[in-house]
């Protein structure tokens, strides 16, 4: 997938360009969704709620002239999504403590666990499918999380640039393999 053009989105909101909005809204939603999941450990349900609210607010705010420059759009989206999540968490926190136990028993939570397990299992398959030298390289990198790229480069007798390039190539292969298997 290519890069997302927030300028285009900004102008599409101002001009009510439905075609461009239909094209870009799912892409921006996906970025915000993953931002909340990865950066703040949001549950999938909470993230979906917050993304929807953030986008609605963003569109309204652009139309009202609250966001003057397209460059300010992404920082606005991230900040709003974060605040929405914190607000949602606060509102949940005010309920009974029993809620915590209920939350971990919800279908959404179980689904998240299952999806993580599936992804780990797929990743194991994909690592096994790497060539022996690639597998040795990436396992060495993973086995020494406190090592930096220079340490890895020294161990394999390659340049720093080559160490990054090799890691990048192997992760590209893993990425493609995981995507293919998860799409099945």
């Amino acid at each position, binding site marked *: 997938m290519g*890069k*997302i053009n*927030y300028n285009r989105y900004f102008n599409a909101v101002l001009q009510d360009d439905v075609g461009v909005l239909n094209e870009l809204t799912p892409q921006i939603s996906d*970025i915000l969704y993953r931002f909340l999941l990865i950066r703040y450990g949001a549950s999938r349900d909470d993230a979906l709620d917050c993304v929807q609210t953030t986008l609605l607010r963003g569109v309204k705010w652009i139309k009202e002239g609250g966001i003057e420059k397209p460059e300010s759009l992404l920082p606005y989206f991230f900040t709003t999504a974060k605040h929405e999540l914190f607000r949602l968490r606060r509102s949940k926190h005010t309920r009974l403590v029993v809620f915590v136990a209920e939350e971990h028993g919800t279908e959404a939570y179980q689904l998240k666990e299952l999806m993580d397990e599936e992804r*780990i299992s797929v990743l194991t398959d994909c690592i096994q499918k790497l060539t022996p030298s690639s597998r040795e390289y990436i396992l060495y990198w*993973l086995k020494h999380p406190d090592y930096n790229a220079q340490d890895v480069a020294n161990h394999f007798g390659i340049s720093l640039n080559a160490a990054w390039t090799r890691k990048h190539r192997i*992760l590209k292969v893993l*990425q493609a393999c995981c995507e293919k298997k998860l799409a099945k």
Partner: protein
Amino acid sequence: MIYSNNEKTKLEKIDDYVKNQLTEEQKDELWLELGDDPDLIDRLELEILLKKWAEIYHKIQAQLLAPLHLIGSKPFH
């Protein structure tokens, strides 16, 4: 060349992010850099998953090797 120097710097920052070597402020800055590029967010996700995978893998390895270690360290009588 597979990626530009700018992207390489982002990949290095992703590596630091996954290793938890960035401050909260640096994490926010990195997200602003990644926010227009789904491929780089895919990369971040993969690296986080790999870290999780490595933790599980090394835990299992340690569990499998633990009994051997105990046998090896047992004094002879």
